[in-house]
Structure formats: C-alpha cells, structure tokens
C-alpha cells in the first residue's frame, strides 16, 4: 500500500493546512512504518500532471490538499478509476473520490465565544489571510460565536491581501493586529497561515491575546495565545491513509465538524491560566449544543452571506 | 634646446584591429602652445587620452618633465600636473560650476568647507585670467563657451602645468575662440604648456609655436609654426593638395521658396526666443544666418523644420502657410513630405541614432517613404542599395552599410546625414553647423556639395557659427541678435568686422 500527499501552492510548510496534512502523513508513517510519497505543485497546470503521475506510478491513494485541487481531482480520478483519490477542503465528484470537508465555522464559533468571554473591552478581532470564501467562513463562525456569548460585542475584521502572498506576510499581520488593538480590540483570532505569526507576535508585544488556527499554536507564545481553533487536517489525512491501508476506505463526502472531531478548540498547559472556569464551561456547553444540534452555526459558504456582522 | 614638458617615445595603441597610434615619438617644449592637427580618426584624441591616463598605451615611453612615468589613470595624470579639456566636455550638467570644479579635488570630507575654499580660489583665477564665470550657475544651463571656461578652470584649480585642449574651438563662436586664445596666451606667459588639437589651420597659425601633424595614426610632420604656411599644413595633413578656396559663381535666384514674416516664438517661461523674424529665400540661393550661438538661430531652424511650433507669424513655403498647417502626423514629418529637409545642428544626438547601422540611419525620417517599403514591411534591398549609393557618392569611410554609425568619425557621420537629406531632393534645405568638428578634407567636400545643390536650384538656409564658412558659402547673410534680425547684407559686402558689429547688436 502506497499513499501519496499532494500539497498546493502554499507549500508543505505553510504553518497551516498543508503542514497539518504533512503532520498526519508523518504520523501514519510512524504508526505503520509505511512510507508515503509526496509532491508539491508550483502552478495550475501541474495539478493534473502531478495527480496523473502519481496515479500512474502505482500509488493506491492520492490525497490532494486544498480546495484548489477540486477540478483536477475530478478529471484525473475519472481517468484512473482503480486509484483512490481524496480531496481535503472541498467536494469533488467521482466514484473513487472521497471528499473531506470541515466545518470551520463550528470551531471558529467556539473560539469566538472564548474571545468574547476573555475580552475586557468587549471588542474582538478577526484577521483573515486572503479574502476567499473559506477564510470568510472562519470569520463568520467566529463572529457568530462572539455574538452568542454577548450580543453587544463588537467584531472587527480584516483581510490581509488579495494574493497568495497574504498568507506569508507576518509584518503585515502584525500591523493589522496593532491596528485592531488601537481600535480597542483585546483578543484577536487569525486565519492567515504564516501571516498569523505576526498577529500572535503583535498580541504578545502589546500584551493582548491572540487565537491560533489550524494546529495548536498555544505553545508559540504561552500566556498570550488564548486558545487555538483546531482544524484536524492531520487527523483527516491520518484516517484516510489508515482506511486505505485497512481497506475501509469509502468514496463519498466526509464532513468533519465538532461531532467528528474534525474541528475543536485547544486547551492545554500553555493556556490553562488564561481560560477561566467560566469560559471553559460556557465553551464546552456550546460545543455540546452544536454537536447535539441545538445550536446551528451558519456556514458562510452555504449562502455567501453571514447572519452577523 | 628647450626643456620638454612632455616627451613620447615609440608609443603604440591598438583598438582591436585598429592601430590608432603607430610608434609615436615627439616632444612638447615647455612654455609653448603646441598644435596637433590631422584628419578625423587620425589618432589625436587617442594620443592625448594616453597622456591623460584615460587609455593605456600598448607600448612606448612617456616622459613628463624628463622623467619616465606610467600614467595609469586620470588621477595619476592630474597628480603629474596634466589637465585636459576633452572634445566632449566632461562636466556634470546638474551641478553648479563650483561643484564641477571641486569634484575630485575636494580637499576634505565635507563639502561646505571645500566649496568655500574653492570659491575664493576661483575668484582669484577668474581675476587672473579675466574669466567671468558665475560659480553658482548650473553648468547644464550655460553656453558652450562658458562650459569650456569651466573646464579650463577645473584644470587650473588642480594646478595643471600642462593643459591639453581637444578641439576646443569646434563649438565656439569666433569671439569666444578669440577669448580662449587670449587665455591660452596668458597661460603661456605664465610658463604653462598648452597642447591644442584643432581642425582650423587659421588657429594653428595664430597661436601655436610648434605643430605636429598626424595621419592614419602616424606622425607625418613636426614643424615650427613660423616655418610653414597654411597650405603646407593642409597638404601634409590630408596627403594631397587641398583646395581651401571655394570657387563660387554668382547666384541665379529663382522663384521665392520660403517667405517668413513676423515670426515669433515665446517659450513656456514667457521668454521671447524669436522676435518678429521676416525674410525671404529663393530657389538657387544660399542664405547664411550668422550670430553668436544662442541668439535664436537654433530656434529658427526648429520652427522651420516643424520640430517646434511658432507662437505667431507666418511661414509661406511654396505658397503654403506652414504655421497654421493642420497635420495628423507631427509637423516635422509633414514638412519633410512637403519638401523641407533638415540637417540638425547637433548631429550626433539629433540627426542620427548611434546604435543604428548605417543603412538604418540612411532612412531616418524617410522610413515611411513608399520607396523603402513593400507592404507593411521594409524593402531591405532598396534600403541597402540607397545606403550604398550614399556611401559611394559621399565617400563615407569605412564604406560599410552594416556598421553602427556611432563607430564612424564625426566627419563620416555628417556625410551620411548630408547624403540622406540631399537625396530627398528637397526644395528647401535647412543646415545647422555643417562642418562642426569635421576635418578640412571633409569640409572641402561638404562645401562643394552644398554649392552644387545651390546651383541645381535648391534653396539653402545655412546656420553656422563659423564666419568663414558663412562668408564662403552664402549669397546673402542675415545676422541675428537676441532673437531678432539685426541686419542683412549681400555676402560680397560682408566682412568679419561688419558682421561682428551686427552680431553684437549694433545696427
């Protein structure tokens, strides 16, 4: 059994979902001793090429990371019906394709609540990377959570830029965070990859709180990272490979929400002191309510709009 | 024998396959003015550049004040008391005079101190040599004559004992040239040595003590000026008999080709550059425009050639009004099509594209002509043929159609431009400084060609700062001063004195 992972343009070490996928694959390798192949594309045309190449080289399961692969996966999967394909972050059609999508809004909702509860100024901030629907879904979930905790809270939101560079500009991230702090924000959540490093750094410099994203970033600046919104791409990739190996892999759409452990908030030794009992109970309660369906978090992508501002 | 300031023994210099200086051996006596003459490309500038450390000789010895020296850079030359005023001025245009003078000889890390010291020194030099140069003027805005004085001041400021001047008078008016010579004589009196490169034999006879004649990289003669005549020098230089006197038949003016009346030009800053200019020009005559440069001649050419719009007035060309002419293309192109050709004053910057091949320059301005195109493409063969004809007829050397024109000597560049404009068979030819920097052989040729053109019935308007040239070629002479016409007289009646008075604005 040979699995393979294909990273998108942002690159394997994007401190975001590509990196999380890499972590998952590594975990699989460690657990099973099975090596995997990996590839990274540099432009549009290479997407199909790389997928096709891997399919041809007797790879059993090809995992494409990122919504930009959707089209390529659909095309190539149709050409190689015997090979299993998977895509993370979007839905691709095909009888041999599994699509793993996350309910980012649910995890964001939780950290939004935590943010409001931790905020003294009752102003919380959001900093996204590039202005795309996925990132807007983060922001929208966050705003819903924030407002749920306190309807009067103000959510200040910024996007970093309009090119993929927006995920790699920590200086600008820091500047955006500072601008929000100057406007009274005291907790800021970033969904901006490498740019977010600057956000968290600025939070620390200004003695404010930041919220990490994707992986657990609490340890980066202990005492200054309130929590992290976990998006377990690593789990998803690990699970995909494991299923592939065991033969339990199935085509179709897999949605990873709070219920499935696909998203979560992070509580560990690094932020233990920042999270009061009150926050912890309220957030965990919300988590339960979402899982049980009592609380519905709106997905920005569903209607291209957000119920709260 | 007097002491030698500079002595060269067996100096050789190659540029690739060109042997620019062949086994040069000669000496310059201290405290003299030493002339160096020779055709374009004879190797004069190269030789001087070697003395100034700009180029390194391939072989040979250079002695300064009797001591063999290796001059590796201009810096070293300056240290040995050598100063050079280059053919193309080596000035930084946006700098002030003062800044240009201290450049490279500042004397301290900060500028304010250096400039203050230089200012005092400069005042003294200004006084000693009767130079009137404003230390705070921007060099780029100065006239060439003043720029040259700045160059001389630069060398004096550095304490030069030997002053090399490469074609200093090529761009000067006679008055400015006279002034330069006055300065050079003063320098000689003070014991300085001057080396003077020039194409003007009159100047050589006027001021030099010794003359060295170069031809094709070699020294072909070294004489005391007192021992020779102009004609001897010319023959020595070119290697054949040169006819220095133009035989001019009387003009037979035909119909009126150009009628200028009440022409005015005011620039963006409100300065009047041309004031109420009126004159006529007929077929078969040459009208010369004399004047100290900067008195509107250049602007007049620009207006008449369509490169600049007049503010008011009328220009009638073959009965057509040009000033109000509405054209879709730029006026310069429209005028050319009507039959006005133009040889610009600043040939190397305006009249040609240095990086273009000869054949490309041969069609500059005529690139839209049906005769050079085939559909939307060029007719390459026709262009080359045309260029070849130019080269043959005007004896352009080297006779290469595929050589960057920047690599040709000034005289040969001028011939290509001349050929191009004459070939267009214009009714009116505007000519600016036709022989600037050109050697006497080429001058002879160019003058003959212009006369021939006149005799074919063309109208020629000639602007030149060389009074000799104006007087030799023109049938009528118009003198300009301060943007206005200060007088007009038949060439036969003109003398240097009468023209000089008019040029000074005395009616």
């Amino acid at each position, binding site marked *: 059994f040979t699995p393979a992972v294909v990273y998108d343009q942002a690159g*394997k*070490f994007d*401190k975001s979902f590509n990196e999380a996928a890499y972590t998952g694959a590594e975990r699989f390798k460690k657990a099973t001793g099975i090596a995997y192949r990996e590839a990274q594309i540099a432009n549009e045309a290479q997407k199909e090429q790389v997928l096709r190449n891997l399919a041809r080289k007797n790879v059993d399961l090809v995992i494409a990371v990122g919504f930009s692969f959707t089209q390529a996966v659909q095309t190539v999967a149709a050409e190689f019906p015997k090979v299993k394909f998977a895509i993370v972050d979007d839905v691709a059609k095909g009888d041999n394709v599994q699509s793993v999508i996350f309910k980012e809004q649910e995890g964001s909702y939780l950290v939004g609540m935590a943010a409001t509860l931790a905020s003294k100024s009752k102003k919380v901030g959001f900093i996204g990377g590039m*202005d795309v629907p996925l990132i807007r879904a983060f922001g929208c979930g966050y705003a819903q959570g924030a407002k749920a905790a306190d309807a009067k809270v103000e959510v*200040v*939101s*910024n*996007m970093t*830029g*309009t090119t993929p*560079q927006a995920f*790699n*500009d*920590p*200086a600008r*991230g*820091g*500047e*955006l965070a*500072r*601008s929000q702090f*100057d*406007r009274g924000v005291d907790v800021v959540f970033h969904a901006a990859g*490498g740019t977010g*490093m*600057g956000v968290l*750094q600025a939070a620390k*410099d200004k003695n404010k709180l930041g919220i990490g994203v994707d992986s657990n970033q609490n340890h*980066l*600046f202990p005492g200054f990272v309130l929590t992290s919104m976990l998006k377990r791409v690593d789990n998803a990739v690990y699970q995909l490979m494991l299923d592939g190996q065991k033969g339990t892999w199935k085509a179709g759409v897999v949605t990873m929400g709070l219920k499935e452990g696909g998203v979560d908030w992070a509580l560990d030794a690094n932020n233990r002191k920042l999270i009061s009992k009150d926050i912890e109970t309220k957030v965990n309660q919300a988590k339960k309510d979402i899982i049980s369906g009592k609380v519905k978090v709106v997905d920005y992508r569903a209607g291209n709009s957000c119920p709260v501002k | 024998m007097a002491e030698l300031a500079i002595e060269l023994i067996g100096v050789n210099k190659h540029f690739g396959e060109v042997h620019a200086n062949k086994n040069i051996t000669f000496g310059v006596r201290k405290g003299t003015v030493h002339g160096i003459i020779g055709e374009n490309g004879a190797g004069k500038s190269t030789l001087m550049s070697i003395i*100034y450390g*700009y*180029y390194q000789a391939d072989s040979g010895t250079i002695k300064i004040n009797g001591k063999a020296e290796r001059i590796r*850079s*201009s*810096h070293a030359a*300056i240290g040995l008391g050598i100063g*050079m005023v*280059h053919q*193309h*001025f*080596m*000035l*930084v*245009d*946006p*700098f002030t005079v003062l*800044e240009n003078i*201290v*450049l*490279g*000889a*500042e004397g*301290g*890390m*900060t*500028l*304010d101190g*250096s400039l203050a010291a230089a200012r005092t020194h400069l005042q003294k030099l200004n006084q000693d040599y009767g130079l009137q140069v404003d230390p705070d003027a921007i060099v780029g805005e100065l006239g060439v004559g003043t720029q040259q004085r700045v160059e001389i001041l*630069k060398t004096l400021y550095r304490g030069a004992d030997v002053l090399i001047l490469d074609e200093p008078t090529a761009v000067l008016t006679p008055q400015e040239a006279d002034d330069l010579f006055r300065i050079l004589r003063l320098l000689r009196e003070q014991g300085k040595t001057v080396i003077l490169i020039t194409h003007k034999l009159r100047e050589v006879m006027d001021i030099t003590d010794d003359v060295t004649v170069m031809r094709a990289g070699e020294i072909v003669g070294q004489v005391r000026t007192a021992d020779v005549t102009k004609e001897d020098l010319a023959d020595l230089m070119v290697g054949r008999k040169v006819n220095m006197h133009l035989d001019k038949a009387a003009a037979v003016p035909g119909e009126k080709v150009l009628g200028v009346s009440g022409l005015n030009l005011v620039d963006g800053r409100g300065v009047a550059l041309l004031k109420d200019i009126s004159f006529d020009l007929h077929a078969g005559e040459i009208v010369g425009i004399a004047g100290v440069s900067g008195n509107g001649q250049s602007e007049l050419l620009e207006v008449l050639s369509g490169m600049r719009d007049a503010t008011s007035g009328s220009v009638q060309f073959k009965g057509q009004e040009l000033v109000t002419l509405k054209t879709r293309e730029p006026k310069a192109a429209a005028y050319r099509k009507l039959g006005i050709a133009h040889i610009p004053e600043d040939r190397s910057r305006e009249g040609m594209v240095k990086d273009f091949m000869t054949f490309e320059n041969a069609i500059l301005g005529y690139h839209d002509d049906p005769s050079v195109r085939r559909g939307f493409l060029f007719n390459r063969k026709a262009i080359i043929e045309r260029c070849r004809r130019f080269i043959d007829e005007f004896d352009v050397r080297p006779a290469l159609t595929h050589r960057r024109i920047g690599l040709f000597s000034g005289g040969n560049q001028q011939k290509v431009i001349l050929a191009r404009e004459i070939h267009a068979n214009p009714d009116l030819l505007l000519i600016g400084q036709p022989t600037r920097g050109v050697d006497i052989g080429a001058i002879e040729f160019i003058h003959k060609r212009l006369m021939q053109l006149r005799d074919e019935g063309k109208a020629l308007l000639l602007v030149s700062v060389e009074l000799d040239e104006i007087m030799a070629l023109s049938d009528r002479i118009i003198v300009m001063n301060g943007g206005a016409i200060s007088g007009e007289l038949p060439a036969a009646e003109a003398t240097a004195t009468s023209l000089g008075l008019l040029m000074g604005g005395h009616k």
Partner: protein
Amino acid sequence: MDMIFSVLDATLRVSTPLVLAALAGLFSERSGVVDLALEGKMLAAAFAAACVAYIAQSPWVGLGAGIAAGMAVAMLHGVVSITYNGNQLISGVAINMMVSGVTPVLALAWFQQGGRTPTLSDDARFTAIELPFADAIAHSAVLKTFFGHNILVYLALLLIFVVSWVVYKSRFGLRLRAVGENPHAADAAGISVKGVRYMAQAIGGALCGVAGAYLVLAQTGAFIQDMTAGKGYLALAALIFGKWRPWSAVLGCLIFAFTDAIQIRLQGVELPLIGSIPDAFIQALPYVLTVVLLAGFMGRAVAPKAIGVPFVKSR
C-alpha cells in the same frame, strides 16, 4: 484623536523598512546602478538576522549579521553590475530569485521548522523603548506618535538626516551624484567610478540590512519565507516617486504607509453615502493613490543620467 494617533503610529512603523530600503536604493541608483535587488538584499538580511539573533540571543548581533548579509548580497550585485558590466536589471531579478529560493532551503536544513526560523524571545529582539516625558505630551497625537517605538525606528529617522547630509553635503555624496550623472566626467576628474559604485553598493547593502533586520527583530520575531512581500519593489517605487531625492523618497514611503494604515482601518467600515466598499478596493487604495499622485502632481521623473549603463571607458 486616538484614531489619528493610531494611524500616524502605524505609518511610522510600516514606513521604517520602506524608508531604509528606499535610502539604500538611493545610494545604488544615484551611483548609476539600478537596484531591483533591494528585495533580495532585505530578505537575505532578514534571514541572517533571524538566525544569528536566535543563536546569539542578542538583537545587536542579529542586526550586525543582517547588515553583513545585506552587504554581501550588495557585493554580488556589485560584482555583476560593476566589475563584469552585466545587465543590472537581470542581476536584480536573478538575485531576488536566488535569495528567495535559498533562504527557506537553509532555514529548513538548519532549524527543521519548514523554512522558518525559530521565534525569537524578547531578549533577542528590539522592543519598544519608553522615552522619558512620554506622558507629558500624551495629549498631542502627532507628538505621541514619536514615542514608544523600538530603537530601529529612531535609527531610521536619524538615518534620513544622515543620508541627506551625506548625499548633498559630503565629498562622497558629490562624487556619488557625479558618478551617477556622468561617470566619464567623474573619471576624467580622477575619481574611481567603480570604487564609488562599490561604496554605494556597500552602504545600500548595509541599509537594506537594517531594513531586513527590522522586519525580523522588531516586527515579526522570526524569519518566514518571502517575508519581504514586495517591500523592496515598493521602496523602489517610492524612490522613483521621490525623483531619487532622499526627503521626497521618504515622503513616498510615508504616503504608502499612511494610505496603508488608513486602508486597514477602512476595511469593513460603512462610509457615509457610499456604504461599505469591498475590501479588495480598499486594499488597492495605496496603489491607486500612487498612480494618481504620480500622474497628477509629481511631474516628469528624471533619473540619474547614467543609470543602468555599465561604465566602459570609451566615448
């Protein structure tokens, strides 16, 4: 009031690396060498500063390393453009690519953190310094802007004065300008054209070094792949905008930084009459403004005459 302060404060912070890079470009371009390599110089400096500051646990050593790296890249640009008379535009583009490629490779090899360097602790960074009597002027937004920054911001401010003094009032400055305008004239005056150009590269490299170090040591606390994010090009644009004059170039940088600060604060804000403008348009604001300013007020920019032309002794 607070908004004004916040904007001015951000302007100062954001403009600092731009100003330093623009001044660096000024030396290079005034000497006649086109400097597209500003980006690469800065990025290399950021990388070196991050690595060394982390290892030495000292921002000053990191700054030194940044300066050294900036100068090293500048020397490469110099060797190509000055000694080998190479095409300066190509050299700049190539150097930027090389630095952009090699830094993450080295970072990965040395720190195993995916092309990043470890996050610096506060001891290894330049943090805000509190100036005395800061409170006394707390009522003035404009004055307050100048307090509570890190030392490099003040260094940059100081350097503007130093640079404009050097360029206009020192012997080196005179030679620099001469070499960029007319190298043949400078050469004839006994000045080593190549020497001056190398010197300009060295100074420019050092300034870029400070700029790059600022990004890491003052702003982000770690090196991240391509973290200069086009600042070198923006600085170059500001330099051209300022017609190659120090204060005008600084003004260009300030305009960029200022509109950027405004832009950040305008995102998502409902404007009277217009309503909410898409973020994308607001983000384009600094660039649109630059174009408008260039077209409307700045007039023709006249570059140093010899810029981009290798100096070859001949006429």
